[in-house]
């Protein structure tokens, strides 16, 4: 045995590049191992062995009885699906690059090698799929880095060129903020932009909203006072994902500047520097609320969630922060109250210290991730000759990511590269 191995090693070491056709075998009775064709040139990455769980292959059979192609949906009868199903025999068509499987339930399936490769269970391929196609990985930034990370695109290009649209949405996913310039000064801009992606996310306040000073306003944002850092609508379970703020008129007074902070960066800092604060802010549920009326319709919104929301793997899913929209009801045991206030004061202090300030100009559309960034504005003098007029709307990530995937497929098809 030892001898045989060492001989083989020697031979493969010495022999010139070999060609080996596509092959497959059953391993551990239930799984299928596929060895793509190997030529000397691509013996590396392209030729790696792919292992597929048999039950998964059977579940994803592509025949018309199991898969409905016009709706791209599985139609296999799961009421009688046996998870103990296993492959009995394999046949490989090397020329067509196809794998044929005969199953223990008497069914037969065929799979294209290319289809299999794109669904590889190899850890690296899976993370590439998740980061390149599912949702791009986020990069967090400090306020001082704002000018380096912020990308600017022309509104006209985003509206007319798919590539510009893709770049805008991708940068929004990665950095959470992008500026669009040169938009016309009419009130339809945010709607046209949202419909270029999908459609506007409606809220209690309607589809588009106007931010300008209104005496007697029912919402704190509709005043000319300074608006401290916050996220919009933390009192929704389905918090609107992305904010589009179109500057139509900007005040000539010294105030009215935008403030932005990447709260994921603030959370990173707390996690490293003061883990006890991070712990409290990610575990203590807070009551966020909004009580009022809009166009004669009353609402009473409440959502209970921590300031820093994490998924099961400890990744950030959302930041909630709004001083006016935090309820006076606080539904936690007494002993948690004072420590939570101390941690929250620290969070607010760090965020304030990190805020980047700039002032949008008429024709700018400020777009940012409302699940992640805190935004605010400095106060301004509001007079008849010195007003400020912003039109806003929201988009949801479900719709944006969908658009990004469609664009990625379309643009990579056009350039001839592969997408998932």
């Amino acid at each position, binding site marked *: 045995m030892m001898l045989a191995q060492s001989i083989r090693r020697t031979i493969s070491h010495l022999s010139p590049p070999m060609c080996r056709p596509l092959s497959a075998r059953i391993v551990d009775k239930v799984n299928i191992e596929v060895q793509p064709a190997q030529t000397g040139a691509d013996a590396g990455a392209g030729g790696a062995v792919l292992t597929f769980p048999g039950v998964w292959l059977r579940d994803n059979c592509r025949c018309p009885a199991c898969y409905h192609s016009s*709706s791209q949906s599985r139609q296999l009868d799961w009421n009688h699906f046996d998870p103990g199903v296993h492959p009995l025999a394999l046949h490989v068509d090397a020329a067509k690059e196809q794998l044929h499987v005969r199953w223990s339930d008497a069914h037969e399936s065929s799979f294209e090698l290319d289809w299999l490769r794109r669904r590889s269970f190899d850890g690296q391929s899976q993370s590439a799929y998740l980061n390149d196609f599912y949702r791009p990985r986020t990069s967090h930034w400090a306020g001082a880095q704002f000018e380096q990370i912020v990308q600017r695109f022309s509104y006209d290009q985003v509206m007319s060129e798919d590539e510009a649209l893709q770049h805008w949405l991708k940068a929004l996913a990665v950095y959470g903020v992008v500026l669009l310039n040169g938009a016309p000064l009419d009130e339809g801009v945010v709607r046209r932009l949202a419909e270029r992606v999908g459609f506007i996310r409606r809220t*209690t306040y309607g589809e588009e909203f106007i931010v300008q000073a209104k005496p007697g306003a029912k919402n*704190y944002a509709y005043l000319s006072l300074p608006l*401290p850092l916050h996220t919009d609508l933390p009192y929704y379970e389905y918090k609107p994902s992305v904010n589009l703020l179109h500057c139509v008129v900007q005040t000539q007074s010294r105030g009215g500047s935008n403030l932005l902070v990447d709260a994921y960066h603030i959370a990173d800092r707390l996690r490293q520097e003061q883990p006890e604060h991070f712990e409290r802010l990610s575990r203590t549920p807070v009551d966020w609320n909004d009580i009022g009326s809009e166009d004669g319709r009353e609402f009473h919104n*409440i959502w209970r969630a921590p300031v820093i929301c994490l998924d099961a793997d400890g990744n950030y899913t959302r930041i909630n922060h709004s001083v*006016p929209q935090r309820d006076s*009801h606080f539904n936690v045991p*007494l002993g948690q109250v004072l420590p939570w206030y101390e941690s929250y004061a620290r969070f607010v202090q760090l965020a304030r210290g990190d805020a980047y300030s700039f002032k949008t100009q008429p024709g700018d559309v400020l777009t940012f991730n409302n699940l992640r960034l805190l935004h605010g504005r400095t106060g301004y003098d509001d007079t008849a000759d010195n007003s400020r007029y912003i039109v806003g709307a929201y988009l949801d990530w479900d719709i944006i*990511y*969908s658009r990004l995937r469609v664009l990625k497929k379309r643009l990579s098809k056009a350039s001839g590269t592969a997408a998932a």
Partner: protein
Amino acid sequence: MTCVQLSRDLQQQLVLLRLHLEQPAMQFPEIWLRDNCQCPKCYMQQTRSRLPHGWNCLDTGVRLQQLSWCAEQQALLIDWSDGHQSSYALGWLRARDFSPANRARYLRDIYRPERRHWSGLEFAQIQREFQYEELLRNDETLLQWLHQLAVHGLALIRQAPLEAHVLRQLCNRVGFMRRTTYGDEWSVRAQPGASNYAYMAAPLPLHTDMPYFEYKPSITLLHTLQQSESPGGWNLISDAFHVADLLRQREPSAFQLLSGTPVDWADIGSDKELYFHNIWRAPVINLDAKGRYVRINHSIPQRDSHFSVPPEQVRPWYEAMAMFIRLANEEACAFKTTPGDILTFDNVRIVHGRTGYDDTDHNVRHIVGAFLDWDIAYSRWRVLRNALGHNK
């Protein structure tokens, strides 16, 4: 007049307020009282919200200096170490008492009512019917319908007109429709070459709608305009939270797998002009930090062939999934809606399906569907409860 006893817990920095000797004192943390001062400098009545500037440099070391009770105003008065003075009305304090009993009351009566899970056998007991016209006319009926949906996740509305605008009218009565990639309203009837699996006459196994959205539509409304005369086309409904309960008791390892393994849910296609490729990765059974159910995802056609988990997790997951589906089928109840019915259910929780039917020119089935979100439905539930005096 109430005889009020005030005291302080210096160590925990609490204010204690006792109304009757035989009752426990209400308890309030000092820092929370300062944060929620109701004076015009700290709180803006017109927007009903805290004024934020105090938080620019909040001093969590602020201390209470003097405590008193104003019998005339029935209010608690406090002088603070930062020179500020606050006053809190008794009714306001009572609603915000930090005692476990009051906090539980708030969650149940104001936040979201407690859900009751039900088995297939209990269907007849939990089922409730509402008349369409009464829902439009009567706020109390509207509230009862929303309450039934929140608690049991299912309600049947009868006698709706056979007109296209009915669901919009009903949704506007609550708030507004939830739009998706399929538009506001959608039609379910057999279509040759359908781009969605639901638009066919084949049996539609139990599923939740749109598991491929992070923001999955919350409440499904299905308005029957025409029902198939063939023996098929029955509705199937099962409470998947109850199915999860059963799995948790009987097969804890299967429960673990279904609540811990992320699944790729997907929908690829187009509707009118809009092309989409929706994906959301999440387990079948979704739990919050405390292990309570937040959502069920299940749809055989909408489960992606991409499965982004380590290969050794695959087979055990399939075994658990097969068990879940078997239990869901066992717990399913079947009924057949008739024209004018609107079936409404919690799509976050309930799995639904239909048996197959023969679709011919003389034997059609036409259902119009729409969605509502829980954010909007609970808001309406709270406003109605308050207006109708249910929180007194």
